[in-house]
Structure formats: structure tokens, C-alpha cells
């Protein structure tokens, strides 16, 4: 075993990174391993991006408890970590009289869960607040703690703050098995060799079942990926005022229409179970379903408004709720299992997993303390992760100042989102460096506008090659063999002679 850590976190999604960040407060050596080329690139990058108030989960479930416990943490967290977070409130919109009674049910459930700040607004009021809403709206539930965020931005900010405070992150590093001695986990095997540890934290998202089974824990637990497809609409066409859910059905929260921190409207998600944990493809039928569902709330939606499509996979589990008397079979798992030592087991963290992530991280700390771990705070822990300059959001005077310091901030590389060369270079040399096109895109939102990278792609490829000291043909979209370019042209080869 090459190195030994106090704690190894398996998985760099929002749950793993948030846990790393909160644990970095203590005198512990921590390693986070992530199988993809970048952190936060799986479910934490492809979801509805909402911090839910907590009226939706079944009362008494761990989902409800974690969600509601996390809500008050977000504002402070967004200020410490400097990620995009907007508390605009959210609405559950009843269309037609027959849907109205369900709003009262939601309010009741919300109260049982401990949600505050809910109110019922009339159809008239709703039409006033959102001119684009379906005129057949009969009323809505408004929850003032609902918020939009940039979920990848949250994950990245937590990861960077963890690194600033001494956590090691290894990407492109996949967990393969535990090293177990006398019913105690003493290390993990990865594709990059073995690492010793006293504790392992399973935060592997869609693969959390596979990971826990390697430790012999909960053999009956199974994750069934449930796909959600989305459409993104151009903010140049229209911008919604807030976040709108339809009244929920038995199986899902339904197709919603929401503004985003980018100002683009997001429609989705669908909800269809599948076997494949990697298949995040979009289907024609899925996109059609989103369009039709979205029109129920916002009738003016037109296919011509679409600028991007994507899909995410919910890690839907089958863990029964442990609260006596609550009959619910799809709860979160946040536990230290009794059958093995040295494992913190997190599983089935589907929605509202993003919303709950800070509370889950704090719960992990409590569990470790309960297990006798003496957590000593560092005197020099720095909870602040500074924001980097974002040309798009600056005044002209601020832009002038940043260009005077570094002229690369004066050259716009992404014409739709106004991302500059300076910002791209800064991301390549940041605490969790961007090494691929998609990594830059998620960090800067470059290439997410109307032209979808058509303009910036050759330019970003060039900058990545230059800054990383590699050939342009080695620059990739998302690591591995996802390279953009095959070889120099014949003509270019001749020119080099």
C-alpha cells in the first residue's frame, strides 16, 4: 500500500465533496477518489438544480429529515463557498379545479416535515406573478425556502475548499475493492494501486450498491437507475420568474418548468427506470414527453426555443425507512453498518440528495463521533473558497480593472456567454484543475449558449493544449478516447517540414 489516510471517500459527487469539505475542518488525513476525469460530472451535474423546501418527501423518512435539516444551511454555505444560489421560492401549480385539493395535502405534509414559509396563492395571484403560466391555473402552493443553484458549482466549490484545507483528490481513480482484515476495512484497491485507511466512506452514487456489496453490507440493496431527460430553452426568448412544479403523481414530481441561475428555462425531468448505469442518452420520445409536459405549465414553449438537451440518472434505491410506523421503501441510507468496521455507508441518495448534501455531511460527522472517533478541529481551517472573476457578471469598470491586471481577461473566447481567455486559464490552474473541454464548460458555462460551442471549441482546444503542454490532438471532451482531433492535415504536415 503506497499511502495511508485516516479517511478515504469513494465518489466525488456533491455528497462526497460536501462530506470532504465538512470533514476538512478536523485534523484528519483525507483522500477522495473519483473514477471519472472530473469530480461532479455524473448525477451532480445533471439534475433539476433545486434546493427543495422539504414538503415533498414522505413524513418520517430520512429524506424528509435530511432535506429539512439542510435548508437553513444553504445561505451561509453559498456565502462561504461562493457558488450561485438564488432563493426565489418555488410553486406547485394546480391546473383546473380538480388539482386544488392536492395542494392542501402538500401543505399538511410540509408542516409534518417541519417546513416553514408555505402559503397558498390564488390563480389570479399566480397569473400576476408569472405572466407565462397556463391561464387555467386554479391556485398554487408557494414555499419561500425553495431555491435554484448551480449544482456542479456547489460540488466544485466544496471540493476546492476541501483541497485548500488539505484534502487530496485523485480523479480518474476507480475503487475496485476493499482490503479487509478481521472484519475491519484497512484500505481500498483502485486502478491506481492500493491506499490504506481507517475509514472508508461510500459516496459512489449510482454505484453505491456495488461498493457496499464489496463490504458484504446489505446484499439485498439495489440501485435502479431512473432516467430524467431535460430541455434547456434560450433566455433570449423568455425568462421565467421562478420555479414551477405540477402537482405530483404517485411516481414522480412530474415535468416542471424552472428558471435557472443562468436565466435559461429548464423543462423536465422524465422518469423512466432502466438497467444501464451509464446510458444517459436522450430519446426522441423522452424529449417529446418533456415538451408536452412543459406546455401544461407554460403553454408558449416551442421547440425553436431549445438550445440544449441533457439527461441524468437518479440513484433510486430500495432501502426501507427505519422510522417505526413509516411504510416507505426508497429511503436514503446514511449509516455505519454493524457488520463491518471502518465503513460509513451512504446509498440511494436520489432527489432531494443535492438539497440534503450539507446535512448528510454533518450527519456523517455525528456518526463518526458516535463511533468513538475523536475529531479535533484545526486551528487554521479556512471555510472560505474565494470566487474567481466572472467577466459576464462584471460592470465595465470591474472588467477594466481585471484586464489591466491580466490582459487575457480582455479576450472573449465564448461569444454567447462572454467567457474570456483569462477565465479559462484560471480554471486550468485552479485547486481542482480543469483538464478537458467539458470540465471548462461546467466551470465557466462556456459553450452553453446559443451556438453550443461551435465558435469556442477550436479556441478552447488550443488553450488547453498550450496550458497543459500537450498536443491539440490529445485534448479531449471528457478524458479517455474522447479526443476531438485525429491528426494534422496533410497540408499542415507539409508546412511543418
Amino acid at each position, binding site marked *: 500500500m503506497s499511502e495511508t489516510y485516516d479517511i478515504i471517500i469513494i465518489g466525488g459527487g456533491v455528497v462526497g465533496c460536501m462530506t470532504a469539505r465538512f470533514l476538512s475542518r478536523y485534523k484528519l488525513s483525507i483522500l477522495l477518489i473519483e473514477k471519472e476525469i472530473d469530480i461532479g460530472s455524473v448525477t451532480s451535474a445533471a439534475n433539476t438544480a433545486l434546493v427543495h423546501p422539504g414538503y415533498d418527501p414522505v413524513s418520517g423518512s430520512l429524506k424528509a429529515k435530511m432535506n429539512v435539516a439542510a435548508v437553513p444551511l444553504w445561505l451561509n454555505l453559498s456565502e462561504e463557498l461562493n457558488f450561485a444560489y438564488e432563493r426565489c421560492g418555488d410553486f406547485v401549480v394546480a391546473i383546473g379545479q380538480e388539482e386544488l385539493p392536492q395542494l392542501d395535502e402538500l401543505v399538511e405534509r410540509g408542516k409534518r416535515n417541519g417546513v416553514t414559509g408555505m402559503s397558498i396563492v390564488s390563480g389570479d395571484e399566480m397569473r400576476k406573478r408569472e405572466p407565462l403560466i397556463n391561464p387555467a391555473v386554479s391556485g398554487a402552493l408557494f414555499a419561500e425556502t425553495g431555491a435554484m443553484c448551480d449544482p456542479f458549482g456547489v460540488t466544485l466549490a466544496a471540493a476546492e475548499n476541501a483541497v485548500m484545507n488539505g484534502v487530496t483528490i485523485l480523479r480518474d481513480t476507480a475503487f475496485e475493492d476493499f482490503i479487509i482484515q478481521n472484519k475491519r476495512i484497512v484500505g481500498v484497491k483502485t486502478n491506481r494501486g492500493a491506499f490504506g485507511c481507517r475509514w472508508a466512506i461510500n459516496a459512489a452514487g449510482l454505484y453505491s450498491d456495488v461498493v457496499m456489496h464489496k463490504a458484504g453490507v446489505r446484499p439485498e440493496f439495489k440501485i435502479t437507475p431512473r432516467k430524467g431527460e431535460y*430541455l*434547456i430553452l434560450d433566455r*433570449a426568448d423568455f425568462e421565467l420568474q421562478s420555479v414551477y412544479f405540477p402537482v405530483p403523481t404517485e411516481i414522480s414530481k412530474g415535468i416542471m418548468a424552472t428558471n435557472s441561475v443562468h436565466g435559461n428555462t429548464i423543462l423536465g425531468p422524465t422518469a423512466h427506470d432502466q438497467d444501464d448505469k*451509464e446510458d*444517459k*442518452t*436522450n*430519446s*426522441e420520445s*423522452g*424529449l417529446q414527453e418533456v415538451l408536452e409536459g412543459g406546455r401544461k405549465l407554460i403553454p408558449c414553449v416551442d*421547440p*425553436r426555443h*431549445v*438550445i*440544449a*438537451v*441533457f439527461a441524468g440518472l437518479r440513484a433510486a434505491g430500495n432501502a426501507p425507512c427505519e422510522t417505526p410506523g413509516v411504510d416507505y421503501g426508497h429511503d436514503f441510507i446514511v449509516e455505519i453498518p454493524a457488520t463491518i468496521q471502518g465503513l460509513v455507508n451512504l446509498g440511494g441518495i436520489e432527489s432531494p440528495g443535492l438539497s440534503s448534501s450539507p446535512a448528510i455531511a454533518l450527519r456523517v460527522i455525528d456518526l463518526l463521533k458516535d463511533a468513538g472517533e475523536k475529531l479535533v478541529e484545526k486551528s487554521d481551517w479556512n471555510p472560505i473558497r474565494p470566487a474567481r472573476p466572472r467577466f459576464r457578471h462584471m460592470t*465595465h*469598470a470591474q*472588467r*477594466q480593472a481585471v*484586464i*489591466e491586471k491580466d*490582459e*487575457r481577461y*480582455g*479576450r*472573449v473566447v465564448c*461569444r*454567447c456567454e462572454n467567457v*474570456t481567455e483569462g477565465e479559462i486559464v484560471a480554471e486550468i490552474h485552479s485547486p481542482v484543475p480543469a483538464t478537458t473541454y467539458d470540465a471548462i464548460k461546467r466551470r465557466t458555462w462556456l459553450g452553453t449558449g*446559443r*451556438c*453550443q460551442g*461551435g*465558435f469556442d*471549441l*477550436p479556441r478552447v482546444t*488550443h488553450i488547453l493544449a498550450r496550458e497543459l503542454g500537450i498536443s*491539440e*490532438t490529445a485534448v*479531449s*471532451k*471528457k*478524458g*479517455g*478516447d*474522447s*479526443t*476531438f*482531433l*485525429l*491528426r*494534422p*492535415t*496533410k*497540408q*499542415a504536415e507539409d*508546412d511543418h517540414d
Partner: protein
Amino acid sequence: MTNLHYDVVVVGSGPGGLAAAISARQNGAEKVLIIERDIELGGILLQCIHNGFGVEVFKEDLPGPSYAQRFIQQVHDLKIDTLLDSMVLETTPDRRLFITNRKLGIREIKAGALVFAMGCRERTRAQIRLPGSRPAGVYTAGTAQRWVNVEGYMPGKRFVILGSGDIGMIMARRLTFEGAKVERVLEIMPYLSGLTRNYVQCLQDFDIPLQLNHTVKRIIGNNRVEAIEAAAVDEQRRIIPGSEEIIPCDTLLLSVGLIPENELSRQAGVRIDPVTAGAFVDSRFHTSVPGIFSAGNVVHVYDLVDWVTQAGLAAGKGAALFAQGKLAVSDKVVRTQAGENVRYIVPHTFDPNLLAEEAIPLQMRVKQPIEAPVWVEAVCNGKSVTRKALPYARPGEMVTLNLKPDVVDSFRESGTLTVNITER
């Protein structure tokens, strides 16, 4: 650069912008500035290294960069200022511009008259909602063209091209020259969307099959494109079940249309025609905002560069006159109206008094192809004004009808001129 006030400012240095700047200077504007975000003048022509430019203007068949060079030379000769590597971030209705440049930082520039010549961008995968995975290897044809012709890199070795636009067809030939295999060009419509001449010279001559009424149903491959699933479509452009076919390839190029780049125009309050996605303009390419002109692909998507140059010349003249306070305000206006089988006409209006001095070209595209001799006929108040015969009419090829000074008597009053394109 100390003085940031110009008589005429041109945004964009493609053939439209170059012509506008030259013409503004030649028509009396003293201080003229071209702002270009790229590091060279020339616009999209710089990556069009194939021949096919200048047949109308120079009666010569030139590669894109050579065509541009003739105008760039004039820009220098006429001592027109240029600001390269400078992006216009913002404009206002009173013609102030905010630019960013690495050396200058953020600058405000005031223009006596403004010409927008920002060109267009390509329609993307998302806009046609292509299903499937999201691997590397799906590019717009123009992005691939830049890579191959400007940066000197091949983006793949086995290609499928979706859309029969001109850039896609030109790239099919270019990639074949470079030793790549172009498996097929798929077109969802029952007709070609680009020029017939490009079909013959770029596809037929290289045995590259074109399949009309076909589309891509799905992209396959996780990291890099491994194949696409092609399928035939019916008259409603719905996929015909059972017609699916997997075509192995490593790259999918999209040549599915161009969209005028009008974000700056919108900021300045310029009214946009939903059909062309460009500004409403008169025959001088004056937009709805006084002193703001618009020329080239930013107005509507042209097929031949020569017409872009002409539009730039007209816009530049208008801008120079406006800046000098000499642009006559007319009491009469004629509106053009797309009649039978015509999708749109540019310009949207013209001043009949101007027609007494100079011919006004009306440019339009047909809705449906007619593969038989047609009349292009302009009608005003139920009377035929002028007409011309063409051997056929196709959506991919722009139709021009020249209104000559000798028909000026048809427009004694304000009115509407309708153009119809029908079978002879």
C-alpha cells in the same frame, strides 16, 4: 487611438463589413472604423479556401481569402481604422458601442452611423434536438472547416454529414481530399438545401451519396462517435419505422442551417423579422433604428458572396449619408410583400424616389422547389410591374429581381409591391 468618435463604425470585417467601410469612406465619411473580434480582417471567407467567390463582382473564380484580400487592400489604401481582436459587447440605440480588447481594455466608442455586419452562426445539434449520446465527434460543418483550413487539424476519418447545406457539401470534398471517407450526406427535406453547383462539384464528382428524405435518428458512442442510426422520413418528416440503418463513423458533421447573429442588433432596439431572423431594412439597409444599418448574412443568409458585397456597399453609402446629415427622408414608402411561393423579400421597404436614380435588387427565397420554368413577377395595385423568367426555382438558391429606374412610374404613391414565383 485617442479619438473614440467615428463618423461610421462597422461591426464585423467579413465581405459585408469590408464593403460597407469602403463605401462609407468613398461616400464622404471622414473617419471610418471596422471592429473585428478575430485577429485578422476577412470574416468567414478566411476559412473558405475553396474557389467559387467573385464570379459576379470580379468575373473571376477566386478562393475566399483572395476575394477578401482585394477589399482589405482597399481598406488600407483608404486609411480606414481597424480594431482587431476586439469584441463588441454591447450597443445602445444612440449608437454607442462598448468593446473589449486585451491592450485597450473596455472602451466606449460613439458612432455617427453604425453598420452591423456580424454575419451568422450555425444551427446546432440541440436546435434540431438530435437524440442519443453526447460524445466527442459531433461538429458543425463550419467548426470542422475552421479546424481543417485554419488550424490544420483533421477531426476524424469516417464522416457522415447531416444536412445538404453548402458548407457541408464543400467540407465533404475537402475531407475527401484529405484522405477521409465521407460515407453519406443525409437531408431530411425532399430537396437540396444548398446550391446545385456544390452538389455536382463536391458530392457527385466524388461519388459521395446524397440521401434526400433521410435524417439521423440517434447518435451512438460514449466517448467518441462510433456510429449513427440513419432513417427515412415521410412527408411530415416523421421517421418511417423499419427504415433504420446503422452507419459506422467517427464524426458527424451538421450542415443544418445558419442563423443571423443579431444579439447586438436586439440590444440596440432594431426590429427583427421573424422569417429571416434579420433586421427589417429598406433598400439602403437602414434598420428601424435611425442611423443603424445592417448588411450581409446578419440580414438574411446569402448563398453568394457577391451579393453580400453589394449589400455592404449600399449600407455603407447610407451610413455615410446619415453621418453627414444628407440621408434624404422620403415622404413615400413602398412595402414589399412575399406573394405566392415566396418565403421572404429583402429589402422590406424602399423609397420610390431612389428608384428614379438607381436600380433596386429585390432578393428572395422560394418556399417550395419548382423544377420547371417559372415567372418571377412583381405586382403593384393589381398591375404587373416587371417580371423575369427562370429555368427553375429552388429554396437553396436565392432569386434576385432587379427593379430598374424605368418602372418608377408604377410607384407614384406609397403602396405595396408583391412578388410571386409561379410555374410558367
